[in-house]
């Protein structure tokens, strides 16, 4: 058999190094080529991760037993010998950048599985990689100094599940540095400065959003095939909004990143919500940040424990300095009350009277007003029973009466406000949450103060979170920080006692119940139509959106789908639904592989079941999403 020269570039020798020339015959198998090559380089190193990449055909020669002729390689082939795993700069949902080694030779689906294994994130099938949006690099040269979390030293293991140490994968326990990386992954980030939010790219329209979804990488091809080079930047994001089997105990990283992705989607107005919802999201962010800062390694502690813990704590506080005689005990046992002179104002039509001073007593869940302190044993002038949401509003059987109580200072306000809040939940002052309620009101007031004072310019202390960083830029325009504070505070009262996990779960739930949740948009042109329209791909259906009105025109559910076909040449998708409904459209903003993969992917997500819980059916995924490559 004829001997010919095969030249191979060895990446490890450096960019400018000349190609190594090998004398081969066509029946030499790839493994033999590699062996010859390594011998010729005379470099002693671990070559086990290296493989040959055929540049012209954009193809890895991974079957080492195949002969060169079987691959169809001739002397003109440009081969590169390089590691299959290369470092990648991975933008995480929380905005941080992680540097790690990812597989450039396996389909992206598997690459993601590998990445998720390293960062301990379960259910990698829900995530994928996408090309980042190019940032305007005009004035920003500072970006280079961006913090990088490095995980490239983590050994590549084949174990499906890394062994855990202290609840985190063992490789994170190696050094303080690694632990810091894990902390970044598993602990929520503080709210971003609102300038940061304002500066980031925000999709302004459905079409803008559609363009983002055109950036997803193809799951069935490898990174090399998609033009990704070592050290390139990619985003890791949740792609399929069908979150399966969330278990806070095991899903610390997953929940944290999911929360971060949801938070950013809201802050960047990627998903729309109402004002009321935004205030609640803001309140939850504030709370989550506060709790996350105070208890670093939790997510494992539970609501019930927290409750008792705080109950005990407040008891301890109360008991301090108290004698233990029986009578004293009984004294403290009797329901605590608040007594004070407060100014009261009852808005009524035709009254011009202002605030009037009364001796006000707060007991159990009701407020009694007396003309003076001395009369407090007689009949009250007025008694208000509060089992209502709002401090100033008191529903009685006739409806509601509004009563304003004016307090002298913040401490007093916090005490009374907390009492009213508890009463509206049917709790008395004896309730263990009273102190924490007071504290939370105080800290929120403090936040308002710092905001109105320094206008959040320098966010030094963790207490001084700018309310602007909790809501999307739309509300920066609409409201002053000062106006936002009471609204967020209001929403905050309903969530202030949640544990970290519960708060995150709640955040995610509200996010998931938004009408636009989980919609991936693609601009398409329906067959026979001359105008662009938008298809929204949801976890359970496709919707057709009229771009002019922004209205959902039609929706088709996947479970009514009989078949779908892709014509790769004219980039057209044809879908047939039950009842002889046929639709066909060509994709404008995204490759139809992306659309195809979304639909197949969602169908795949719905096949997951507990019976075969932990084994991911990769084959099925590729069957449903593969397209060309699956054949």
């Amino acid at each position, binding site marked *: 058999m004829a001997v010919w020269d095969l030249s191979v570039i060895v990446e490890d020798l450096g960019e400018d190094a000349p190609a190594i020339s090998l004398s081969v015959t066509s029946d030499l198998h790839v493994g033999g080529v590699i062996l010859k090559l390594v011998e010729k380089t005379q470099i002693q190193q671990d070559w086990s991760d290296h493989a040959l990449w055929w540049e012209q055909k954009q193809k890895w020669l991974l079957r080492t037993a195949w002969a060169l002729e079987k691959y169809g390689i001739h002397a003109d082939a440009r081969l590169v010998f390089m590691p299959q795993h290369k470092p990648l700069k991975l933008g995480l949902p929380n905005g941080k950048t992680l540097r790690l080694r990812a597989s450039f030779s396996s389909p992206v689906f598997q690459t993601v599985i590998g990445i998720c294994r390293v960062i301990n994130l379960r259910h990698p099938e829900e995530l994928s990689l996408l090309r980042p949006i190019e940032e305007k690099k005009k004035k920003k040269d500072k970006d280079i100094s961006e913090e990088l979390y490095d995980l490239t030293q983590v050994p590549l293991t084949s174990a499906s599940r890394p062994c855990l140490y202290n609840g985190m994968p063992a490789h994170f326990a190696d050094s303080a540095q690694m632990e810091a990386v894990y902390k970044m992954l598993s602990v929520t980030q503080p709210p971003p400065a609102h300038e940061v939010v304002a500066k980031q790219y925000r999709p302004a329209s459905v079409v803008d959003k559609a363009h983002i979804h055109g950036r997803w990488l193809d799951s069935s091809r490898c990174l090399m095939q998609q033009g990704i080079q070592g050290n390139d930047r990619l985003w890791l994001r949740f792609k399929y909004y069908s979150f399966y089997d969330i278990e806070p105990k095991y899903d610390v990283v997953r929940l944290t990143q999911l929360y971060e992705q949801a938070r950013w989607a809201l802050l960047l107005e990627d998903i729309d919500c109402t004002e009321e919802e935004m205030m609640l999201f803001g309140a939850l962010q504030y709370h989550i940040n506060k709790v996350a800062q105070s208890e670093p390694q939790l997510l494992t502690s539970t609501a019930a424990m927290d409750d008792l813990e705080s109950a005990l704590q407040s008891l301890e506080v109360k008991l301090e300095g108290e004698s233990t005689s029986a009578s004293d005990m009984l004294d403290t046992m009797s329901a605590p009350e608040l007594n004070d002179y407060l100014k009261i104002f009852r808005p009524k039509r035709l009254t011009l009277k202002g605030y009037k001073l009364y001796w006000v007593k707060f007991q159990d869940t009701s407020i009694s007003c007396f003309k003076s302190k001395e009369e407090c044993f007689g009949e009250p002038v007025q008694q208000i029973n509060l089992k209502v949401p709002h401090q100033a509003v008191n529903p009685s059987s006739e409806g509601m009466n509004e009563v304003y109580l004016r307090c002298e200072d913040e401490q007093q306000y916090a005490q009374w406000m907390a009492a009213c809040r508890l009463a509206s939940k049917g709790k008395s002052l004896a309730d263990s949450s009273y102190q924490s309620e007071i504290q939370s009101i105080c800290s929120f007031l403090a936040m308002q103060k710092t905001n109105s004072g320094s206008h959040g310019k320098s966010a030094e202390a963790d207490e001084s979170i700018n309310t602007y960083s909790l809501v999307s830029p739309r509300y920066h325009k609409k409201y002053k920080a000062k106006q936002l504070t009471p609204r967020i505070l209001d929403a905050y009262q309903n969530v202030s006692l949640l544990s970290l996990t519960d708060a995150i779960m709640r955040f995610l739930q509200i996010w998931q119940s938004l009408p636009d949740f989980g919609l991936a948009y693609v601009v398409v042109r329906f067959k026979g139509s001359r105008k662009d329209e938008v298809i929204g791909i949801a976890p359970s259906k496709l919707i057709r959106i009229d771009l002019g009105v922004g209205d959902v025109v039609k929706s088709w559910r996947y479970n009514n789908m009989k078949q779908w*076909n892709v014509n790769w040449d004219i980039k057209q998708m044809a879908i047939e639904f039950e009842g002889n409904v046929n639709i066909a459209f060509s994709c404008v903003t995204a490759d139809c592989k992306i659309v195809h993969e979304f639909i197949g992917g969602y169908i795949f997500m719905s*096949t997951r079941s507990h019976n075969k819980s932990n084994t991911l059916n990769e084959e099925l995924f590729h069957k449903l999403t593969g397209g060309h490559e699956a054949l």
Partner: protein
Amino acid sequence: ENTEPPPPALPSAHKEINLSIGFTDLNESLNELEDNDLDALMNDLIADLNASEVKLAAEIEGLGPPSATKLDLPAPKGPVSELPSPPSPRGGTQQKPRLLLLHSTPSPDEIEAQIKAEKIKLALEKLKEAKVKKLVVKVMMDDGSAKTLMVDERQNVREVMENMFEKTHCDCNVNWSLCETNHELQLERFFEDHENMVEPLLAWTRDTENQVLFKEMPEKYEVFKNPQNFYLWKKDRKTLRDMKDKDKEILIKENFCGTSTIVPDLEGVLHLKEDGKKSWKQRLFQLRASGIYYVPKGKTKSSRDLVCFVQFDNVNVYYGQDCKSKYKAPTDFCFVLKHPQIQKESQYIKYVCCDDETTMKLWVTGIRIAKFLSFCRPRTSKVSRPLLPSSPPHSGHAFLLRHHWAPNILPSASSSGCQERCQTAPKAPEAIVSSIPHTSRLRRPLTFPTPSTTQRRAPPDFLPPPPPAASFLPSSSLNSMPLPPPPAALDLPPPPPDPEFLPPPPPMQAYAGTGCLHLLRRLHQAHVGTGRSKAGGALLWVLEEDSTGATKEDYTVPPGRRRRWGRGLNVRTDACHEEKAGW
């Protein structure tokens, strides 16, 4: 009491109506009860008291040293307790309210004494939280008869219904509901099974003519029978009617079994009665999980422009009756949103009128789902809520304490309160209740009775072949390859026939029960609770409301009931604190 004959003479609702709830004289009000009511009530009470005593005793026995040592607590030296029987309202005697509290003499070691004091304090705190209100409720049946039963404030509606099933021997199907009517406002709503029963009744006014009814409400769980009518309401009638069972199941799975319950995306023009005015105005409303919104004039339907009409915390949804004649509503299909405390005409009541009955039921159900969602969210206030609805009266408490001191014993207890409730909650409605997010165990709660063979999934090979690679094919042709039904469907067993769609409540003989109910009065409020000191003693504390509504305490110990706990305990009764009681 099951053998109790139906009341011979129907108690006239109107007569009962005039009885006040917050009566002052127990004797008098008891006299006004019909004999059979009284008998039934007595039975209940006695059973109740016996049960609680037995349980208490059992609990105390269970509090031996083992648990104390296990919990690594100081030796049981401190608090002691005694167990008087809860006062019985029998005979209407004016009961002296009493509190029984026993203390050990302070131990010489001051630190230890303080620890002890803390324990007692904690126990007392817990006791207070565990005080239990009880109502005697008269439930009106469809046929005009009535049943009387006692409702404990820890009971949820489902549990009360189980009592009703026992009393009425009805067929126990899932449609049975307890409803409250508001006579003055002419409103009606059925309670949700997970709701607390006593709470809404306490909002009634003194001289109310409101009633509690027991009747079948087919719409109660209609959303599980025909989810398509709610989640695909935009589709045409025929599609909805011909919906396959398989697709219904998928809808349920999708909307109730995911990480979050999904609220139907209702939208439509409804008539709104303007605040305090007689006119009705049309508005384009949208239902979202966070509330009902409307689209202001001249604005788009995008989320940012929506104006919040109402949020669901502290709001209940009612059916309005006779709105057409009463408020000049365009139709009689009105639903009403109001705070449960509001019992009379008020500008804070929101009346919404729909064009037809279907729309009304659509919206009412949608609002119920949204309300349910907030019910399901993680709760923090477990202490004031019943933890284990079906558990013995004091176990909720014991549970909490045990949990705190020995978290490892009960790993499952670390979940949220609502979860606990769900796990122990009974049958049918749990299709809803158990669709709680973030618990894998509850993930697939729809356990329809089906042959197990249907649950086997088809092998994955069965799945659709991927779209073919067109590059090998003529470019103009679309390759048609048949695609089997989406695999999601394979996962689900076919739904059983409609009547069994939701598992029926516990089996009972099928008597047809009809009727209607009426809250009689608050018989007494007995506050009973136990707590445990760390030392392993138990405390029982009985407080009772006296006729003036103020509660006093009495620290006498019934003779012969004194007991000693632990070693070296000194028992002291203290009878001198009556004037100190700040209740």
